């Protein structure tokens, strides 16, 4: 059975673990570098990006994960996870994983009273609209070559993207019962293991 890690420094990691388990894969929390062993992919959940980033640096997870990402390790980052994966974060000198060629803006929609939910058409997930929950969410300001935008708000603002085996969303698929985004991530994980049998 595939084993997926969910980064558990802080945030909604239990929700991702539950979603992945509903899809029939083994999902485990990851807090230390030793826990990467045997994982076929990783989810970086929503939470506070400053908190998660700081704890990742303190426990040497940034270097470990960068190394794996450079070898094609699949990662899904939601909200804070997207911020941590982005090459550039507007208005904040945060050391991130600098993996996905996008520029994101934190708290782009405003404070909590401006948080919202909306149904979005996401072509890679098929015909039905996807319930997208945005909580003090970032958005994508700039997209580099080789990055595919997967979802946009009605005004055209990009809010989900893919670059190779890396998947980012500004919204929280783990807060809904719709498992299609996690399923899409697992299809990337499965494609990767076919291409690269080394999962150690």
């Amino acid at each position, binding site marked *: 059975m595939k084993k997926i890690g969910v980064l558990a420094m802080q*945030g*909604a990691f239990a929700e991702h673990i539950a979603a992945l388990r509903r899809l029939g894969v083994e999902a485990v929390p990851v*807090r230390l570098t030793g826990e990467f062993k045997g994982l076929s992919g990783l989810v970086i959940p929503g939470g506070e990006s*400053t908190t998660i980033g700081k704890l990742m640096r303190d426990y040497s997870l940034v270097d470990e994960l960068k190394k794996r990402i450079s070898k094609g390790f699949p990662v899904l980052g939601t909200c804070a996870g997207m911020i941590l994966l982005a090459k550039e974060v507007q208005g904040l000198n945060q050391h991130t994983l600098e993996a996905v060629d996008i520029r994101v803006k934190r708290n782009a929609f405003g404070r909590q*009273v401006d948080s919202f939910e909306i149904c979005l058409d996401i072509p890679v997930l098929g015909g039905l609209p996807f319930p997208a929950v945005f909580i003090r969410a970032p958005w994508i300001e700039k997209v580099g070559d080789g990055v595919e935008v997967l979802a946009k708000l009605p005004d055209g603002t990009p809010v989900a993207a893919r670059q190779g085996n890396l998947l980012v969303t500004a919204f929280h698929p783990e807060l809904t019962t719709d498992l299609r985004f996690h399923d899409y991530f697992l299809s990337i994980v499965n494609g990767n293991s076919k291409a690269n049998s080394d999962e150690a």
Partner: protein
Amino acid sequence: MEKGAEKGEKGTWTVKTGLAQMLKGGVIMDVTTAEHAKIAEAAGACAVMALERVPADIRAAGGVARMADPVVIQAIQKSVTIPVMAKCRIGHFVEAQVLESLGVDFIDESEVLTPADESHHIYKHTFKVPFVCGCRDLGEALRRIGEGAAMIRTKGEAGTGNIVEAVRHMRAVMDSLRKLHSMSADELMAEAKVLGAPFELVQEVHKTGKLPVVNFAAGGVATPADAALMMQLGADGVFVGSGIFKSSNPELMAKAIVKATTHYKDPAIIAEVSKGIGAAMPGLDIKTIPEGELLAPRGW
């Protein structure tokens, strides 16, 4: 700020409880100045609570404790990018309206301030901003959720640096959750009557075995081990009130409590982060506090 979101729905239950879910596994720290807020953020706090005085000072000052001056709250909002919470008095829905208009991210309808209404809490469903409320047991938690609280915390006994009341309240909630989960359906109405809790929520807990919202520990957390204790007892995260800025080295204490909350199951890490962080805040034995000065019994 309206860009992109104009077709979305704001202030929904999913959006309100969702922010609480994003705070899980984190530490929310009481701060009274922009400078303290920056220290908290740099230490890894997942949110700050903007106050005029920390609970230990409120306890010492006596008199009527009210919502903080908007100037204090706004200065803190400008200084950090993490969520900013603020407290209003129990039942004081106008203080809550003011806090919502200031754009605070979460309102704590708190027993630490002097209650404004001795029968009623705020009806929280009508607000777009989410609320967190204190509880001592499951009945109180479900009453607050029924009124619209999107997050719950134990009351503990704020400003004492003594974890005993937070432990009592967390154990009470967890014991009742287990009991309710194992009951048969025909026992639920009688149990709802005993708990003084809405029947629909009692039924929901019976089904899931969990609270319908996130539950943090609060009221007495003073050390990294205190934080990890509450996490192991089942808390989703931790509020630290006086415990940071009444300790001898707030910066080190804040960082250590953040790490102990993440690695709460790892005693070796808790030991490591507890080294050389200075003295915890001075503590108070609950038995020495006159009954009229206890904060936890406030709330109905």
